[in-house]
Structures are given as C-alpha cells and as structure tokens.
C-alpha cells in the first residue's frame, strides 16, 4: 500500500478512529493488528520473515536475561545476530554471490542455483531495529521485554516498517505501550507534518524522478551536462522522497501520540561529508555508530593497532588512523547494505576514503587556513564548505543511481570530458519528460524547502512562527497545500508514482 494512495489515507483514518475509541489499555493491540494488516497487504508470504525475526530477537532477549555466565551470553548474542543478519544477507546477497561464483566456475559444469528471491518490504529496517534491541539487552542497557505481542509491535509498528526510521527499543516501546488521549495539538502537528511530507514526495520527488529515469535509462545517449543535471535531480528526488516519506510516517505516529526519532536534519546544509552523514538517515548512522563503529574502535585488535600507529606516527595522525579505519569499514558496510552491487561498494569506499582523509588532513588544513587568514568559523568559509560538501555528495550519487559501477564511471567521464553546455539550452531538456511548468514546480518547491531549512538552521521554529500569523494566512496555506497536492501531485492513475526508493534496502 504505497502512501500516496487513497486507500492508504483510508487505512490511516480508520486506524486512528479505532485507536481513539477503544479502551486506552488496548490501544497497543489496535496498533499491532493494524501493523500486521498493513504489512500483510504487501504480501502474506512476507509475514514469515517478520515473524521469524520477531521470535528470534524476542527469545534472545528473554534468554539473555536469565543467564549470568559471560560466555553463554556472548553465545546467545552471537546466535541471534547470525540468525537475524543471516536472513538479511541470504535474501539480499545470495544471488549476487551465487552468480559471481557461477561466473568464476563457468565451464566446470558446477553451478549454484539462482533463486527468484523477493526482498520482503522493509526487512533491513526491522532486522536492524530488533538486532539493536538484542545488543542493548546483552549490554545490560535495559531489561528485556516480557510480552512477545508487545515486542512484535515494536518490530512491526506500521508507519515505520516501510522505510524506518530505525527506532531504539527504550525510546519507542514505552510510547507504544502507553495510553494516549486524542490531543488537538498533536493531531494538528501530525497532519501538518504529513502535508509537508506529501508535498515533498508527490510534488517534487515523483516529478524529478521522471527526468532522472529518462536520462539514466539511456545514459549513453546524453551529453555530460544532461547526465549532471539528472544526478542533480536525483539528489533532489532522493532527499524529497526519503525525507518526505519519513515526515509522513512521523506525522502519522504523532497523531497517535507517539514521537519518532528524526531521520533528517537538513543534510544539504552540512559543512563536511561527516557532518552530512550525521544529518542524513540519522537513525541508520546512529545505529551504525553504536553497534558497529564503537565496538569496532574499542575492540582489542584496534586497540593494539592504535598502539602501534602511535609509535610510528607521533602526534594526532597516529591516534586517528585506527578510528579512520573503523569509519572506513562502517561506510563500506553501509555501501553494501544498500545493495549487492559493485557500485555500492564503490560508494562506500568513496565516502569512507574522503571522511578518513579529511580527518587526517583536518589539522594541517586548519593551520593552512590560518596562514592565509581565513576564519574557519566565518560565514564565507562555511558557505564554501557547504558547497564543497554538496559537490562531494553529488559525485557520490553517480554511484548510487547509476545502473552499474561501469555506467556510473562512464557518466562521470562524460560529465568531465564531454560536458556540452549547449545541451542545456538547445531544447534537449524538453525531451526529458518534464514540461516548463514541472520544472517550475520543482524549482519553486526546492526554494521553499531551502527557505524553511535556512530558518531552521538559524534556530527559528518555522511551524510556530506560522502559527502566530493571521488565520487567513494559515487557511490560505492549508488550501494552497491541498490544492497543489490534488492538482499537481503525481498519482498512480495516469502517472505511476514511484514506490519508495528506500523501502527495500
């Protein structure tokens, strides 16, 4: 059930209605039922993996609580993680690996079977979420959940199961279990957030996608400038699609009285690539930090490595090498988590390299700036940083959207060596599926998002500021938003709205 459909809105309305009419004690049951109905609507078979993950993680938590022996605890944790991630790895990478092996063994007569595996909706999100829970219980951060049904709700909570955010048990579960009265403020905020999300998604993202898909489908036939334009549009598309989707999800949860973590904090205002990744898909970054980066950096091998590098390179460099290596590994993992393809590995390497390099180079760079008398904290330099960060992100997008690693490299090559500025003006643009009006909507939409982001960066609460305006202004805003959505939204009928780009990751 894609969010940009009438049936989804009906489903939400019905769920809310039931949610606020049943006895408050049973509200969580309504959510559980709704979540399973929602998930089953995408395919009943997919439920198997959800139930499996739920049972594995719940049992692991349950067992961990009853065991004191450290090694036994470790064993339980390891088994749970192997089972959970094994499922994900098998579904995601088996075919990639099998066809790779088959290619290597071609001619020997030996071949691994290649299955038609459908990646269940949102599987990596709920596996990450439940694995985080098992690790936290192991670390003793909180006692395990005793009620499997309540735990099942934590794993399957329906707005988030499609594309995150990846929630933490100690933040989300208590809210899910609590009773919630209907609250006008929360209802209002929820609706506003949903409207904002829908605007981003079906006005901007789905529109930009038309151009992006046209160009990437036939990338060799466009000059570098058009390729660059398509990647730029893809940057717009993926941000608006993903963050818009999250806004819708958070809006729904908010109406139910549940606060979900933020997943985006104006990433295109980031001043460095590391900063960008702290603002983009925050819940994944946080998960990776707590459950991969920290344990890795503090592990014994890294500790020993650190000692050695400090001896070899006295000063800051020696201290930073092992951490850089850890972050490098994290990005590599994020890269292949996106999908089983060399282009994602390249994407991981690209980001890991730049971040590691910039950390190592940072002290020298600061010194250099001081020498040429540029204030590293000043606004002009910040703007330079924002632009260069966006540029680095932009180049990275060639890899995530390009059909393959080779395709991405070819497009990059074209952008550099055969840019052909003329193509932006000679009417080629008109053949890419967007009208002048579509372009206007995208540009105007981006401008509004930029403006809102700009004020938020400056610490202004835009929503509160608007609330103080005259009721006519507020009404005009609501009417304008609804009218734009109805008339210029890209719907499944006539146009096919793209499914969430992220929901299968």
């Amino acid at each position: 059930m894609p969010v940009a459909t009438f049936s989804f809105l009906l489903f939400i309305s019905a769920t809310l209605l039931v949610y606020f009419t049943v006895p408050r004690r049973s509200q969580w049951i309504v959510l559980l039922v709704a979540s399973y109905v929602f998930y089953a609507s995408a395919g009943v078979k997919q439920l198997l993996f959800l139930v499996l993950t739920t049972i594995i993680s719940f049992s692991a938590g349950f067992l961990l609580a009853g065991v004191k022996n450290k090694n036994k605890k470790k064993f339980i944790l390891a088994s749970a993680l192997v089972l959970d991630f094994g499922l994900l790895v098998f579904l995601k990478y088996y075919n990639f690996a099998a066809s790779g092996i088959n290619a290597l063994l071609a001619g020997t007569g030996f071949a691994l079977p290649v299955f038609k595996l459908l990646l269940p909706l949102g599987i990596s999100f709920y596996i990450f979420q439940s694995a985080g829970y098992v690790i936290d219980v192991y670390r003793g951060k909180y006692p395990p959940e005793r009620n499997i049904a309540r735990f099942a709700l934590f794993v399957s909570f329906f707005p988030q199961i499609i594309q995150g955010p990846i929630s933490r048990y100690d933040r989300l579960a208590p809210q899910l279990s609590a009773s919630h009265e209907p609250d006008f403020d929360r209802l209002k905020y929820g609706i506003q957030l949903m409207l904002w999300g829908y605007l981003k998604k079906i006005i901007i993202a789905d529109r930009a996608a038309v151009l992006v898909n046209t160009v990437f489908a036939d990338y060799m036939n466009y000059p570098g400038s058009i390729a660059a334009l398509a990647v730029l549009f893809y940057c717009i598309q993926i941000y608006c699609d993903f963050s818009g989707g999250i806004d819708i999800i958070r809006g729904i949860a908010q109406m139910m009285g549940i606060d979900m973590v933020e997943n985006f904090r104006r990433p295109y205002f980031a001043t460095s690539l590391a900063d960008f990744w702290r603002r983009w898909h925050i819940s994944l970054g946080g998960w990776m930090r707590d459950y991969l980066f920290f344990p890795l950096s503090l592990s014994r091998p890294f500790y020993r490595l650190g000692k050695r590098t400090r001896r070899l390179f006295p000063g800051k460099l020696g201290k930073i090498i092992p951490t850089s290596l850890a972050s490098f590994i994290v990005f590599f993992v994020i890269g292949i988590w996106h999908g089983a393809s060399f282009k994602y590995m390249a994407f991981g390497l690209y980001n890991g390299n730049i971040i590691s390099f910039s950390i190592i180079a940072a002290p020298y760079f600061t010194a250099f700036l001081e020498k040429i008398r540029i204030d590293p904290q000043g606004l002009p330099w910040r703007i330079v940083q924002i632009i260069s960060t966006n540029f680095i992100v932009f180049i990275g997008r060639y890899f995530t959207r390009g059909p393959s690693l080779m395709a991405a490299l070819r497009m990059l090559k074209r952008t550099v060596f055969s840019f052909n500025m003329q193509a932006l003006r000679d009417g080629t643009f008109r053949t890419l599926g967007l009208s002048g009006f579509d372009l206007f909507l995208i540009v105007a939409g981006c401008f509004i998002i930029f403006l809102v982001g700009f004020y938020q960066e400056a610490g202004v609460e835009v929503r509160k500021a608007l609330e103080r305006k005259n009721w006519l202004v507020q009404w005009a805003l609501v009417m304008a938003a609804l009218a734009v959505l109805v008339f210029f939204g890209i719907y499944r009928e006539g146009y096919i709205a793209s499914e969430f780009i992220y929901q299968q990751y």
Partner: protein
Amino acid sequence: MPMEEKLLKILKELRPEVDFTRETRLIDEDILDSFDIIALVGELNDTFDIQIGPEHLLPENFNTLSCILDLVRKLQAEG
C-alpha cells in the same frame, strides 16, 4: 594531579575551543562527535587504567564533565 585536572587536560587537548566546565550536552548537541569519543576513550583507558567498552558509550555517560568523572570512578571501583 587530581583526577578532574587530568581529565580537563585530556579534553582540552582534544578540543581546545570548547569550554568543558560549562557545557552540559556534549553528546546531545554533537559537540563531541564519534571520532572525539573514540579518541577520548583511548586516552581515558590509558590514563586511568580502565576498560571502557561499547556498552558504556551512552550519551548520559559523556554529556558533562562530571558524568565522565563518574564513569571513570565507577569503572576504577569495579576494576
């Protein structure tokens, strides 16, 4: 040198521009990023001869100077 001074020295070296005696949301406001944390933990482990594990890397253990001190004392007592 008392523990607090030692700790301040480590922190100063790590991030000279931050006033650690006044900040109360070092982690929540991203003043210390994850690289800083790892560097800090390395120094703490060496200086105070403790073992900080990933399970201790929670915002509430690192948000203020006194939180960090509490963590170090707790681990020394356990150790």
